[in-house]
């Protein structure tokens, strides 16, 4: 949200130095204009790095699941990478590829943080998974992975458009593909596995967020591209609609990732389907 506010208010380079801000690490500057967004974004980022480091250390100390310890370390590495990309964005004057990478890694970090919250939750730890084998092709798990892939493509296309590296139409065109793939995934999940709460809830959330996101995308297009083309400064409707579009986009990606994880847990592909006949014969022998 803080990053989206910076870009939407065209305030990305209002603080020209990095990692310091006007020569200081934490001194509050004259809090006006674009500085409000950029400096606040840096402070939020600094707090996030500290919190992520605390989570990583805590997880390493108390968590018994080795893969979760690695995930927490991965989260910290991602937030550091994100900070470096933010710095490069400032020092290299916002090259579209770097700024887009900064936006993409931000949402990746958000997804990792959500995943850590999911895996460390009481329900995940104590729940006895209800398992139904998936016999359909493509499998629901494949569909969820495809959904995450198209969402990432959409994220990159949106970032490139937002950072003036590409026209708007690839993002709009891919929105059709995203809608189709996500709707297919949600309909499959809800029509076949609606009795599994852990699958049903993220599927409904994903579908709701998809509809909201399409509406916000349309509004953002109207305010920024159609009506705001010749605006002399960022106007409130375009800032609100684009920030909301970015935020709901992040939630949609996270909801899809949760659905994918829950499908992997509750609706696995049958063992016979996963292992080829040759492998099974070999292991039997």
């Amino acid at each position, binding site marked *: 949200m803080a990053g989206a506010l910076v870009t939407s*208010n*065209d*305030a*990305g*380079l*209002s*603080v*020209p130095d990095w*990692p310091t801000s*006007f020569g200081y690490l934490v001194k509050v*500057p*004259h809090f*006006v*204009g*674009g*500085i*409000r967004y*950029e400096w606040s974004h840096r402070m939020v980022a600094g707090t996030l790095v500290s919190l992520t480091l605390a989570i*990583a*250390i805590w997880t*390493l*100390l108390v968590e018994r699941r080795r893969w979760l*310890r690695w995930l927490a*370390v991965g989260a*910290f*590495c991602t937030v*550091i*990478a994100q*900070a*470096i990309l933010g*710095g*490069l964005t400032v*020092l*290299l*004057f916002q090259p579209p590829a770097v700024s887009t990478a900064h936006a993409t890694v931000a949402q990746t970090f958000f997804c990792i943080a959500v995943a850590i919250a999911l895996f460390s939750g009481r329900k995940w730890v104590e729940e006895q998974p209800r398992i139904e084998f998936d016999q359909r092709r493509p499998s629901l798990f494949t569909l969820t992975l495809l959904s995450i892939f198209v969402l990432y493509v959409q994220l990159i296309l949106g970032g490139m458009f937002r950072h003036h590296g590409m026209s708007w139409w690839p993002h709009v065109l891919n929105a059709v593909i995203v809608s189709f793939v996500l709707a297919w995934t949600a309909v499959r999940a809800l029509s076949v596995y609606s009795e599994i709460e852990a699958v049903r809830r993220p599927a409904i959330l994903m579908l709701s967020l998809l509809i909201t996101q399409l509406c916000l995308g349309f509004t953002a297009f109207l305010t920024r591209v159609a009506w705001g083309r*010749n*605006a*002399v*400064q*960022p106007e409130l409707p375009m800032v609100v609609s684009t920030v909301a579009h970015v935020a709901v986009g992040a939630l949609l990606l996270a909801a899809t990732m949760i659905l994918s994880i829950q499908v992997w847990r509750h609706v696995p592909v049958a063992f016979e389907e996963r292992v080829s006949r040759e492998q099974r014969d070999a292991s039997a022998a």
Partner: protein
Amino acid sequence: MNKKTSRRMISVSTLACALLLTVACNKKENTEQSNNNMSQTAATAPAATPIDPATVATVNGTVKFDGMAPKPAKIDMSQDPACKGMNEAENVVVDNGDLANVFVYVKDGLGSRTFDVPKDEVVLDQSGCKYHPHMLGVMAGQTVQIKNDDQTTHNIHPTPKDNREWNESQPPASAPLEKSFAREEIMLPVKCNQHPWMKMYINVVKSPFYAVTDKAGKYEIKGLPPGDYTIAFVHEKLGEQDQKVTVAPKDTKTVDQSFKAAE
């Protein structure tokens, strides 16, 4: 925390710092290199081609706006209490059909002539959270003095295509910045990221034959040697239009131009 993990965390942090330092150092080196190149260019610049002052001609005229002039867009400066200037954008300034802020320059016809870079600096002032002037002409290598007369910090950020990009902040009552642009570039945008409505254009040319239309749409280019020229009229929103003109010794030619509203 196990030892392996902590060692890896330290390695990642060290790598991040190293990368950051590399970027920062490269940037500084590039800046220094660019400044050195500019000094060398100035030192090795060929001598100016002599022009006979007794034969020079003048081209002048008026630039008109054809059609219904758009209403100036309002600017909301409320996000900084120190900004108390006129709250209207200057992207299309029309008064009684006369179009201001058109950059007029000799685009073609000067051949291989070279010209001395003026030692006087061109002043770009930030006042009322607006740039003055909104449209600026300068010769390649000439100094642009950038002043801040506001009680707020600005950052000056040119976003060129052919010149070096830079972004520097300028607090109130600080010393003027002195900058120059090495390469010819028309409509080089300059903006302030702290006040997103602050935009202006610098036009960097190789010859001293340029002008910017005033509020009455008028311009004048003096001291032009006799010859055949292409005069370009460039506007930030309305684009570029060219006209051919032939000037005889001591001639004064009027070359008017009109722009239609952008569709």
